[in-house]
């Protein structure tokens, strides 16, 4: 039997050591970092107007990355291998829009500066297209406003609060106005950090990404409509 240190052997530095390692353990176990993106969606947004100038809805065109597209299409049979038709994918589109309801369609509206919850009815005009060359799925759907909004200012934000899906705007056509009164203007603000080129090395990528962390940046795509 070895001798055990008695209570008087306890020096403050020992307790500090224990306290520090306990703190370290608690921080690594409870700071559960948020999920990293598993899905990428390149988005185009169209704002639809009634003849009287009210906004009736939002039409989304979301193109998913090839890995997620492969995942989403598993189990679906195509007559011509690797070339899904719209009809063949319609059941998947149905599932998609139903599931999206649980996430408020990742679409958040602010009307004249006020957040409007539950602003949309269930999606209409939805379908999926499959690009056989890039192997990417594109989901089309329209979200009608419950009450068409005649507004001076409308902000539509598209993002996933959990960041499982990384939404980013289409480079060429991020937003379109369909049937808008002439005085209306729209601006699309993309989340920061999108300006990487694919040739960047890993280390460059990390330095850039890290430089932006902690600057309170957010990752929502903001579409601001102004009809003065």
């Amino acid at each position, binding site marked *: 039997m070895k001798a055990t240190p008695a*209570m008087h052997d*306890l020096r403050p530095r020992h307790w500090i050591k224990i306290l520090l*390692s306990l703190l370290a353990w608690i921080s690594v176990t409870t700071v559960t970092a948020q*999920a990293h993106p598993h899905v990428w969606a390149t988005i185009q947004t169209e704002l639809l107007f009634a003849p009287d100038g009210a906004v009736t809805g939002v039409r989304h065109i979301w*193109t998913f*990355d090839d890995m997620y597209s492969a995942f989403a299409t598993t189990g679906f049979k195509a007559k011509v291998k690797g070339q899904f038709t719209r009809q063949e994918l319609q059941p998947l589109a149905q599932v998609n829009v139903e599931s999206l309801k649980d996430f408020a369609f990742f679409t958040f509206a602010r009307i004249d500066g006020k957040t409007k919850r539950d602003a949309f009815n269930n999606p209409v005009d939805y379908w999926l297209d499959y690009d056989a060359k890039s192997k990417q799925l594109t989901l089309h759907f329209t979200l009608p406003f419950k009450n068409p909004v005649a507004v001076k200012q409308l902000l539509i934000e598209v993002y996933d609060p959990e960041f499982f899906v990384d939404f980013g705007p289409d480079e060429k056509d991020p937003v379109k106005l369909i049937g808008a009164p002439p005085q209306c203007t729209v601006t699309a603000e993309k989340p920061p950090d999108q300006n990487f080129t694919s040739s960047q090395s*890993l280390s460059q990528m990390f330095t850039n990404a890290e430089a932006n*962390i902690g600057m309170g940046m957010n990752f929502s795509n903001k579409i601001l409509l102004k009809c003065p």
Partner: protein
Amino acid sequence: MTRTHKHRLRQALLPAVVIAIMLVGAHSASAQFGAGMRPSAVSGIGGVAGWLLAKQAAFYTALAAMLRSAKVDGSALWGLMGISFLYGIFHAAGPGHGKAVISSYLLANEETWRRGIALSFASAMMQSLTAVAIVGIAAVLLGATAKIMGDTVRIIEIVSYGLIVALGARLLWVKGRGFVSALHALKAEPASAGAAAGNHYDAVCQCGHGHPPDLAVAFACESAGSHCHVHELEEPDVLPWGHAHGPEPQELAGPGGWRRGLSAVVAVGLRPCSGAIIVLVFALAQGLLWAGIASTFVMGFGTAVTVAAIATLAVGTKALAKRLAGRPLGYGSVLMRGVEAGAAALILAFGVLLLTGYMASERMGLF
């Protein structure tokens, strides 16, 4: 070559291999982004969490890129393995990987760091196995859709969280009573406190030497059994780097055998990570299922490294505290029983929070 020399060589080789894999991985990660993926805008999280998130996102996209190039260039498979390993290391820091449960379990019980590492690896390997099993059975054999796979994962997830709740509740029951009786013993008769706390469970569980006839008893004894093997007066087994030899299988199994700790391994390992499933299905679509399976297990290996490091930290802290708490009698003993009961309560809390959705768990696709 003597035994010691061999071990020295092995000790020197391991870091070299790890560094080599990391270099290959880092180099390969500079590969192009694939169709529709882009470097992610990291959210407003700063500090370590944000850094981890950035790394995970980068390695995940690199994984996809490697799989794409592996289709035409077989040599990309090496890069794929390197990336998978690194992704596993960083991803284990994210939500849903049971590092909290495993290390709390180790804190609540009397475990060595070797057992901690063994449990970490067992749970990570089980996680890989469930991912492969789900994709193998659902996608390959049954031709099921992503929605069916997602629903399956959700059911498994609920079972897994339920098991964590059960594990926590059971440990809290046992450890809470241990704490209370240590407290009573201290108040009533300080001299016999250690004996009362130490031998409390021996009668029921026979210190793991007997073979409990049914699973329920085995469950109850799994944690209680640890009390029987408290070597209060021995030098604690704290520092991995202080030992010249690797662990032997019998040592890993520890007193009570492999069955002890199995509940923690299953509770944590049941829920596969969403990334592994998506990567596996993508690999399947590329006609590279075997590469995907290998990648999943390498990922699990990386995950295990992180979880094992955290587990070692927990075990080391407890051993140090125990050494300082001194003799098994008196306040030191009450303190240790208190830590164990606290860790058990933490597992229960994790389980309840996961089950009720208050704690982040990984989503599984959109469908």
